[in-house]
């Protein structure tokens, strides 16, 4: 039993850690935005599109929710080039994360949309709005407000899940840890430090979402104006 932790051994690798951190953050921010946008489209089409479109999208959502992210990533990164679609590691990571987040979010969002009161839809209709207009202007924002806590958790899960992209050599935080431990064999310190950074990211993300949510959904607070 000889556990001696030497975090100073990590100091020469601050650059790698920073690079990994930036990659993880950028991946998370971009996929959160693209995933949400895709989810908004998917959720709409799953209600209003032709039957065959709804079936295909239902299949996509179920397949994504019932297979591991790492397999989705491998399928996209290794499998698509076999079909002649060339794709680099970072693009594969973006694509896999976006598709993954969108599938979960579309399903969460659907519950939020279904909770829309019938009166809201009738009011929109008597004011002359089409289905799409009422989705965009009347349904969407309150639906997001309803699902916001679940959405926050899902985005954090995707951020944490992004650790897996290190397995296709994307230089993210986890890759940085792997890189360091392959150089100085201080695997425990490297992984512990990086784990802590992920934890801080998760906590920070939750706070950020709370802050943004409070501004975005201010309409929910009652009280006389």
């Amino acid at each position, binding site marked *: 039993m000889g556990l001696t932790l030497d975090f100073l051994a990590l100091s020469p690798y601050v650059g790698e850690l920073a690079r990994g951190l930036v990659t993880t953050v950028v991946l998370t921010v971009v996929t959160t935005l693209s995933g949400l946008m895709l989810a908004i489209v998917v959720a709409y089409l799953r209600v209003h599109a032709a039957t065959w479109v709804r079936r295909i999208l239902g299949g996509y959502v179920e397949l994504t929710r019932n297979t591991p992210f790492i397999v989705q990533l491998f399928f996209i990164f290794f499998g698509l080039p076999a079909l002649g679609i060339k794709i680099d590691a970072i693009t594969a990571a973006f694509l896999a994360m976006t598709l993954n987040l969108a599938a979960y979010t579309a399903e969460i969002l659907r519950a939020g949309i279904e909770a829309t009161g019938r009166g809201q839809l*009738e009011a929109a*209709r*008597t*004011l*002359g*709005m089409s289905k799409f207009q009422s989705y965009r202007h009347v349904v969407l924002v309150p639906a997001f407000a309803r699902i916001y806590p679940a959405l926050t958790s899902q985005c954090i899960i995707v951020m944490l899940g992004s650790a897996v992209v290190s397995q296709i050599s994307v230089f993210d935080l986890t890759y940085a840890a792997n890189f360091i431990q392959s150089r100085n064999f201080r695997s425990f310190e490297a992984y512990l430090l990086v784990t802590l950074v992920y934890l801080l990211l998760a906590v920070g993300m939750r706070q950020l979402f709370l802050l943004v949510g409070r501004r975005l959904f*201010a*309409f*929910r607070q009652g009280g006389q*104006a």
Partner: protein
Amino acid sequence: MTLVCVKDLHKSFGDLEVLKGVDLDVAPGEVVAIIGRSGSGKSTLLRCLNQLEQHDGGNIEIAGQRLDAEAMAPSELSRNVGMVFQSFNLFPHKTVGENVMLAPVVVRGVNKQEASRVAREVLDKVGMLEKFDAYPAQLSGGQQQRVAIARALAMKPKVLLCDEVTSALDPELVGEVLLVLEALAEEGMTLILVTHEMKFAHDVADRVVFMHHGRIHEQGDPKTLFNHPRTPELRQFISAVR
């Protein structure tokens, strides 16, 4: 000249026939109050007029435009018919001003400035201009309903349908909403109201329509109808609500 023309209207929900042949003509500027017990078909009649329900038989013509079994595009219908609901149905994430401006902007393509001008005008009419930037959650029920009326007016409909607009309100808030409707009536707005407020129907309506079992059972000017009901059903109804 008639603005709304309903002929032999039929509507069923499953096996239940709710409207069994309704005829109703409404002239421009006329205020028609529809009364009757719950289940008599009065709300369904109103909902057929703006295609929230699709009628099964007969026909409806509004401002010369016929509503067929095939649903008309909502944007088309909204040129003629506006509606105010029992439960207000304001959009919770939009301010008072945005609620009123939304449809003119997205449905009619009116520019924001013009929409805002119209919104201020109609909100002023219902006495809600000072709440322009408030959210619905910050308003009382009566205030929300007044905003809902303004929202419908902003689309400049030819006829305004009101579906029990005071039924969800606390008693002390009913008055402010009725005052707004009364002012609209005086201005010459065509109103078709389903209501439980007999005094309002009596004082403001040009004509009262009593519905019973899916048909118009009796109708006429309010004084005659309320003071000298001809049918025992209406007599019973009036004594029950008084």
